[in-house]
């Protein structure tokens, strides 16, 4: 009679699996991968843990940061420690869990991407620069702006001028907004929300610059064409008079609320911030400039 002995080595098998599926995230259910991606973006981490001291984020301030990968790795380690009471589970976490931290990079877009409304998908562009820069940077904004202007918009560019993808943008409290991007922020623009653009005129004369409505040139101001918005003694604008004048200036017979709204938009306010490259372990110097340009002015 022959005798066979069977032995099962979990560690050996796990190691084998790890080398075979190098960097393959399919090892793990999507549910857990999404959770790891969320942790990498610091979802659910309380504000007091994000900012240890109020002096780091005083009222009316904006603070730029880089996300500490070591910190988020420990966050994920802690998360995997749940229910890991046996040596086996620990081996498991050590060999497969740590691999997940690297593969989380592939899933990092998902938490936000999943939420995008089907109507908005047409605006999604594939990560345009395709860069392999896995650094996560961002800013914390603590200001009355956050509460007063619902729907602030932010666009960040890297040193080469490529737009960065927003991975997370969330209002943490009435006055605090956090935004995390993939890649290093070099230039940041915060804009007034487009749905809330102000309507009105410029200067005490209440003049507007006439904007083109021709196809292909929509929104471009026509040089030397200005109109004055008349108003009665109580400040009621002469809308019909304005519509007549616009029709004449634009050589058109139809002027609807859509065109009038576009003509009446006031240049949106925006704040522009530029980061200067700092030395290793030295806080980067940051300064910001402001401009109140019209989006539509750009040629």
């Amino acid at each position, binding site marked *: *009679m*022959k*005798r*066979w*002995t*069977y032995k*099962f080595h979990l560690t050996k*098998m796990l190691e084998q699996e790890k080398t075979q599926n190098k960097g393959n995230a399919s090892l793990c*259910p999507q*549910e857990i991968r999404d959770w790891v991606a969320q*942790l990498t973006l*610091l979802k659910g981490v309380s504000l007091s*843990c994000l900012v*240890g001291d109020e002096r780091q984020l*005083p009222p*009316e301030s*904006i603070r*730029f940061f880089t996300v*500490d990968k070591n*910190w*988020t*790795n*420990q966050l994920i380690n*802690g998360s995997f420690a*749940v229910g*890991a009471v046996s040596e086996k589970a620990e081996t498991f976490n050590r060999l497969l869990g740590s691999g997940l931290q690297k593969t989380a990079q592939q899933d990092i877009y998902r938490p936000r991407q999943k939420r995008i409304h089907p*109507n*908005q998908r047409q*605006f999604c562009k594939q990560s345009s620069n395709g860069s392999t820069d896995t650094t996560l940077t961002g800013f914390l904004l603590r*200001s009355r702006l956050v509460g007063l*202007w619902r*729907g602030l*918009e932010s666009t960040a560019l890297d040193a080469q001028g490529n*737009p960065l993808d927003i991975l*997370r943008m*969330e209002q943490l409290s009435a006055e605090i907004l956090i935004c995390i991007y993939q890649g290093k922020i070099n230039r940041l623009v915060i804009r007034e929300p*487009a*749905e*809330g*653009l*102000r309507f009105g005129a410029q200067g005490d004369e209440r003049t507007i610059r006439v904007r083109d*409505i021709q196809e292909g040139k*929509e929104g471009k101001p026509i040089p030397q064409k200005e109109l004055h918005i008349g108003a*009665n003694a109580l400040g009621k604008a002469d809308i*019909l008079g304005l519509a007549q004048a616009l029709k004449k200036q634009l050589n058109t017979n139809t002027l*609807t*609320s*859509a*065109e009038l*709204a*576009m003509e009446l938009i006031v240049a949106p*306010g925006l*704040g522009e*911030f530029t980061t200067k490259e700092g030395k290793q*372990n*030295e*806080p980067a110097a940051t300064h910001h400039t402001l401009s109140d340009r019209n*989006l*539509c002015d*750009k040629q």
Partner: protein
Amino acid sequence: MPHSITLQAEKESCEMQFIQRFEPPIPAGCLKVKAEQQVEITGDAQEQDRMFTEKQFQIAYRAFTMDVKDVWSVSPASQDSGKFANQLPHITLKNKCFPWLYETKGQAPWVALLAVTHKEQQERDITIQELLEDGKEPYFPTQAQPSIYLEKGEDVCHVVDIDRSLFLQIAPNGEERSLLSHGKFLNLLNKSDDQVEMDGFFSCIIGSRFIPSETGETIPCTVHLVSMLGYEDLTSIPDTCKKVRLVSLYRWDVFSQGDAQEGFTSLMEELDCGTIGINCENDWLRQGYVPKRHLFRSGESTLSLYRGPLLPFENQNLLQESPKTSDGAMVFHPELGMFDVSFSTAWQMGRLLTLQDRAISEALVQWRKEKEKSLRRQDVDGFLRSMAKEAPASSELASKAVEAILTQIGGEDETLDV
């Protein structure tokens, strides 16, 4: 077909489309649904029959109040102060059909935005029953109100009374209201996570009056979104009445200062800009560390360093092993004689966040279990194959035995006698 115009700024990911109007899917009122079926039997026994059924139903919208959740934003912002003299107030609503819910003459919107100073108006809350009583002063066009509405008689609505002469001078007529309301479709991708969930459609109502202002004085002012049902023709207001009553669906206060800086830009300019570390002489503080009170498990207390996940500079990624407890991730800085509890906090935070979410903690445990099972099966399969190679005849017997092993998961070592 409503008219629309699209703004597209090249390179900038900003796009918006203005749309003249949106029709509500079904207009308010009594409606009837009729279903009819015609049955025809062909062949010898020819027969024809018609059956139909009718169902009446009503579509009603709110007419005297509105859901505040429909309001997306207002401009100038509520309670904001600044130089608003050249601004027309506006309100942006998430319900894209709202301004056109009720049919009016010339398809004009049934609402308008009126900016009045506190001196020019009297506001109060009254019940809808009281509002709809005839022949009262101030004048209110009770006859022109919709016959079907969602509110009950005892529900409270907000009314604002203003002088007839003032109303006639500041209220927009139907043609003006048509020009002052529009729909919008926007790219929301540069906005926060909860806002990218929205469909991108909004409706917008612009006020017809510049916000009342005087140089050197702060003028408190309320902007009302009022129902214009019954005020479509401004000449129909009787000359005898002194005041008119308007239903205010939504309102907010702004403070116009004749010579103050404008809101958004001035707040932006005042922002203190920098990196997350505390700007001071101390290197540790500048690098994002803060001292924190630290209570040990043994009961002692000390000061330890803490740094959150946000760094003022870019650092090296050192892939660490997971400690067994949070204390295992503490770092000692001999030059300061202090502990650094940043990573222990992170570890603990990760554990707590996972425990808080039951579904994910269960999924984690389940995953480990399943993975072990599948690895074991794979291993046993390999073992079986090698056994079958050596003794083909016994392979069937062996597979039975191995099945028996698999049921007893947990044993590390099994011996088979075949």
